[in-house]
């Protein structure tokens, strides 16, 4: 890949002027035939790709109201043009949300509208050629499906929906992306994105248990496949081994321990992520989600809790009930599913966690709202809980917290630049440039308020930041898991000298 320039960070970034073709070379590796076929897609570009693509397009228009309405409704007002981090970072006009949609809308008009059939030139309609298909492949893999554009569009046009449909069509004609499709194959076969088999998982968890005991002197368990446990924890597999993810997992374990609940992981469903969302496939998404339902049934749990993962939480919160519900075999007194932050927050509210904020005094924190959590889900009972609850947890664990600029947080949050199935090395230039708006905002609070670390609740965000932050002069470990902060601050019963005999009895009764 050609070397690219890492942009300078700025306190006030001008909207870039257009640089047509700037990212035309960004072209992720295609899926190999075996990865395609494992998912039921053709191995390579089929001979009748044109007719199949148009056929699939028509099928999707009948299946999905969002696609149908969004193909028609855009008035080209331009309100979204400066809202996408990939446009802000690259200046490539095809990364303006409306222009990205137009790559597909032009074909829609040609084949599915009267005006486009009669007057293609007038309404910007064009034939589906191999070049167009190629352009789709390149630019619909420059959209992290973060939905920031949908917040600002007067009709709520969600480019993520359009990217998903485009990728679905590409898969249907044999032009899939390696990163997503290979990973999906692993989930189907082994149960997680990393392809981590059961013995390795058990081994890793034992190692973590030992580490916790060495550090705290308390035996905190990380059970796996424990039938009859109350809670099934489903978390992104990155939590099992990579920094800073694993520190988050340690945090969950300590919280469960302190709450006195019985919980378990599942080796069969050892993955919260659901990359099928990125390729837009309802059927694939359902297949992946079924594993979790099955694990919950087989283990006989009463509740399901989801670890820190952005798109996984969107799928869990917004889609699980649809895809694999109803969850009537679980305890109706708890939301299904529940986010680990909701669980921890409840305990903090009830004063059941002993938190020593000074343990995090070496850091000044800010919080990155993961877009899938922010714009695709909720936590708690009230709209906006997804913003308020993680921050409340951080503030309960840390003395120093500062938010980034208003237009970069909450529902206005900027994507990390690596979401939506783009977290792959063959898209490094895109990832680095796409993170620019977030990096600008971070630099600002770093300079103005001495922020040293940024917490996140998404495995993709964490991996992406760990990779791109050094490009901008931040330390790689300046990105932390939210539950890592909890882990640092939490004082376990029996930790250190004071061993309160009765401590456990109090904690044993469950949080509400």
């Amino acid at each position, binding site marked *: 890949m050609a070397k690219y320039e890492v942009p300078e960070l700025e306190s006030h970034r001008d*909207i870039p*002027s*257009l640089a047509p073709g700037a990212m035309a070379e960004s072209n992720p590796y295609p899926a190999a035939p075996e990865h395609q076929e494992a998912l039921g897609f053709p191995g390579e570009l089929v001979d009748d790709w044109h007719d199949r693509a148009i056929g699939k397009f028509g099928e999707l*228009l009948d*299946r*999905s*109201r*969002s696609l*149908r*309405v*969004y193909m*028609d409704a*855009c008035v*080209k*007002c*331009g*309100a*979204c*043009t*400066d*809202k996408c981090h990939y446009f802000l970072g690259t200046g490539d006009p095809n990364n*303006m949300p*409306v*222009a990205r949609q*137009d790559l597909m809308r032009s074909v829609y008009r040609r084949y599915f*509208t*009267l*005006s486009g059939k009669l007057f293609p030139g*007038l*309404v*910007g309609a064009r034939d589906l050629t191999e070049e167009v298909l190629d352009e789709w492949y390149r630019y619909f893999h420059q959209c992290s499906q973060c939905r920031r554009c*949908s*917040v*600002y569009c*007067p*009709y*709520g*046009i*969600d480019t993520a929906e359009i990217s998903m449909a485009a990728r679905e069509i590409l898969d249907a004609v044999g032009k899939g992306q390696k990163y997503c499709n290979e990973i999906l194959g692993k989930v189907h076969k082994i149960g997680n994105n990393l392809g981590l088999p059961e013995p390795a998982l058990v081994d890793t968890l034992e190692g973590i248990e030992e580490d916790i005991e060495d550090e705290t002197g308390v035996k905190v368990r990380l059970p796996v496949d424990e039938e009859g446990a109350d809670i099934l924890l489903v978390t992104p597999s990155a939590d099992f081994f990579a920094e800073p993810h694993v520190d988050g997992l340690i945090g969950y374990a300590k919280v469960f321990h302190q709450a006195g609940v019985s919980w378990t992981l599942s080796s069969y469903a050892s993955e919260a992520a659901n990359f099928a969302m990125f390729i837009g496939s*309802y*059927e694939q998404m*359902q297949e992946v989600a079924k594993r979790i339902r099955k694990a919950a049934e087989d283990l006989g749990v009463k509740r399901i809790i989801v670890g820190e993962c952005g798109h996984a939480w969107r799928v869990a*919160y*917004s*889609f699980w*009930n*649809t895809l694999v519900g*109803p969850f009537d075999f679980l305890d109706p007194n708890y939301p299904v*599913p529940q986010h680990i932050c909701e669980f921890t927050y409840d305990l903090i509210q009830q004063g059941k966690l002993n938190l020593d904020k000074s343990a995090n005094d070496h850091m000044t924190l800010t919080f990155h709202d993961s877009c899938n959590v*922010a*714009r*695709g*889900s*909720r936590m708690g009972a*009230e*709209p*906006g809980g*997804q*913003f308020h609850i993680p921050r409340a947890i951080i503030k309960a664990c840390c003395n120093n917290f500062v938010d980034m600029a208003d237009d970069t947080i909450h*529902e206005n949050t900027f994507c990390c630049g690596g979401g939506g199935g783009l977290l792959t090395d063959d898209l490094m230039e895109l990832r680095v440039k796409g993170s620019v708006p977030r990096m600008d905002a971070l630099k600002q609070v770093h300079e103005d308020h001495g922020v040293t670390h940024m917490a996140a609740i998404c495995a993709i965000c964490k991996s992406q930041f760990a990779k791109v932050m050094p490009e901008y002069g931040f330390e790689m470990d300046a990105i932390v898991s939210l539950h890592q902060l909890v882990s640092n601050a939490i004082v376990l019963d029996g930790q250190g000298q004071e061993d309160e005999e009765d401590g456990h009895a109090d904690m044993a009764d469950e949080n509400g």
Partner: protein
Amino acid sequence: MPVLTVIFALLLYAATLVLAVGLVLKIVSYARTPAPLKIPTMPAPTTRSGVAWRLAREVALFESLFKSNKWTWLFGWVFHAALLLVLVRHLRYFTEPVWGWVALAQPFGIYAGFAMLAGLAALWGRRLLVERIRYISGPSDHLMLALLIGIAASGLAMKYVAPTDIVALKLFILGLIYFDWQPLPADPALLAHLFMVAVLMIVFPFSKLLHGVGVLFSPTRNQVDNARERRHVAPWAAKLEGGGD
């Protein structure tokens, strides 16, 4: 009956028919296409009435556009609000006797005509001058603005430059409504105005003007945030389940 009257009478009937049938078909197609998943842009209301309120704010105030870009919002909102007043003013040609509130709105309708023109001109200026918006604009986007400006300008011309016989015009329009045709005054400004309005009505169901109904059917705006509490399954997805288990 003058040939001109016949031509315009038929044109306006045809335009009305195309508009009505076209819109109904579109609305039916939107309504019948299921939304398979819950995708409201969060934070979203957790109740139906909350969603109605969200939609009302979008339709009346252009809330999201306001968040997005104050200039576009200002020009767009002024244009649409003015258009509404102008339409209200035009009700006097369709009602006999003229309804009280329509009569009251008359003077505002005049100012609104100018505001509409100003809003359209500003929107067009943006489209031409802002590089990003110029890039995403196609011929039809410019033509649509030209058409609307033509309609507004010819309307104002009849008020200020070449007054037309509005009594005869009203008789013509009422005649159309009651299928009792009356002659149409043959003023160039009026003919141009009516012709452009008819064109607008005809292209409406086939063009981006559909955004007017689109917003009401947009799942990111019209869905309730209750995915955990209520199971939402599209008919085609339910069939998958039936076959799969």
